[in-house]
């Protein structure tokens, strides 16, 4: 089910998460038991019913949440909070509205923690903008951009600090069907060029089959791993391909 312990780039080791109750609210067990390993450079999709805890899984790896039990390991070591090696791309882009497109991308590079990278900021920003095809919009504000463009900008900003893992939380869910298809190709293109490790949460099973090396199917809350499917089809994969459909149908039936 998971890779050999030593080889895992990212590992969820017997992770459990319960949100404590608040004023009058009872505690919510979100993750019952999560054992999952991800290899470097892999594209892993995470699917499951709405509200099952897929996003929580990403938040744990991003360091925004701490597990109630178990460990979240990156390169063999427990993570201790957010860090640029594990960058998150949010479903609704969390771009800085007061900064232009290029300033948003440059933001991470200008922070004290990243100053000594020796990278030329301007060059990196331009390279990133070209990668996501936003170089013509460098001086625009996020409010001037369309949904798909904002998503691309968020990806560019995340990639600018050279993360090792990209955490994508249903990044294409808020886009219309056409833009979504385009963005799927773009994300794959970026992955092929940069070979980052990608954890990609989606509720669209077809999307998962088209994009991922492996698909992790999560159960309803309190969640655990139902099944992991290795997708051995070559890329690019077409929605119309019967092989794609076969896999998608099988996984869908698991979720009923």
């Amino acid at each position, binding site marked *: 089910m998971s890779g050999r312990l030593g080889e895992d780039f990212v590992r969820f080791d017997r992770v459990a998460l319960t949100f404590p109750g608040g004023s009058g609210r009872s505690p919510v067990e979100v993750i019952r038991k999560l054992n999952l390993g991800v290899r470097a450079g892999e594209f892993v999709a995470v699917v499951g019913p709405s509200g099952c805890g897929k996003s929580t899984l990403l938040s744990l790896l*991003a*360091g*925004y949440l701490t597990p109630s039990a178990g460990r979240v390991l990156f390169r063999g070591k427990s993570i201790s*909070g*957010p*860090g*640029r090696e*594990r*960058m*998150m791309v*949010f479903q*609704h882009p*969390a771009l*800085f*509205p*007061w*900064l232009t497109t290029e300033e948003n991308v440059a*933001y*991470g590079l200008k*922070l*004290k*923690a*990243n100053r000594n990278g020796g990278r030329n900021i301007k060059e990196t920003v331009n390279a990133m903008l070209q990668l996501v095809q936003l170089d013509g919009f460098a001086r625009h*504000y*996020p*409010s001037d951009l369309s949904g798909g463009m904002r998503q691309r900008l968020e990806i560019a*900003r995340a990639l600018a*600090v050279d993360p090792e893992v990209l955490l994508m939380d249903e990044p294409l869910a808020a886009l219309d069907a056409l833009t979504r298809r385009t963005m799927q190709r773009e994300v794959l293109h970026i992955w092929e060029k940069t070979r980052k490790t990608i954890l990609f949460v989606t509720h669209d099973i077809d999307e998962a089959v088209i994009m991922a090396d492996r698909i992790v199917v999560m159960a309803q809350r309190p969640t655990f791993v139902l099944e992991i499917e290795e997708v051995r089809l070559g890329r690019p994969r077409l929605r119309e391909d019967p092989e794609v459909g076969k896999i998608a149908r099988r996984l869908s039936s698991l979720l009923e």
Partner: protein
Amino acid sequence: MNGAALRSSAVRLAGPLTVLATWELLARFGLINTLLLPPPSKAFADLMVLVSSGYLWKALYASLFRVVCGFAFAVTVGVILGMAMARIRPINDFFDPLVELLRPISALALFPLAILWFGIGDGSKIFVIAFAASFPVILNTFAGARSIDTNLIRASRSLGATEFEIFRGVVLPASLPYIFTGVRLACGVSLIVIIAAEMIGATVGMGYMVLEAQQTFRTERVFAGIFVIGLIGFATDLGFRRLRRWLLPWYRETES
């Protein structure tokens, strides 16, 4: 200006001009009581006297000096307190009851007390202006700092920002539109309060000038004073709109 814009401007001017012309004619033909409603020409003539004699500038300076002092205090204290209350729990716990208890008190109700404490000069006016103007700033700054999207903070943490960098680079810019609203309201409040205060207890100032004119039945001076006060309000409003375009070019009231 093209034809349509020219026509539009002409029609826009027609309203006020019609009112003024009608008013002037009614007065000239003795159809209205000129003691209560002198013709605009007389008011304008008195305005010229006020300007050339220097009396207007003295009154204006006195009022604006008090406004600027009270307003500056309100903005400084208001932003600092509002921010501190929004970010530091114990500070909010301590100050919130005080703010909620003092806020409903009309500033002018405090004016007699202020005169007892500070006399009939600048002090008492600055005190009530500062009191009245502080609350919009505190409340709006607080609201702004509290309304920041959590994911913006998370994103900047992941990118590697320190707490200080987050405050300076995310919290402040994100709060700025709200702070700006608070400051604009504070200015409006300050202008209202100064006129009222100078009518209750002052020996110099725009409000005092209008009151004295009323008491000596120089109604044309009353109108001249009202006109100048209105002009100040108009000018500050224009100033704020310009400032907003310069400070917040990125801000759209409604998010698309």
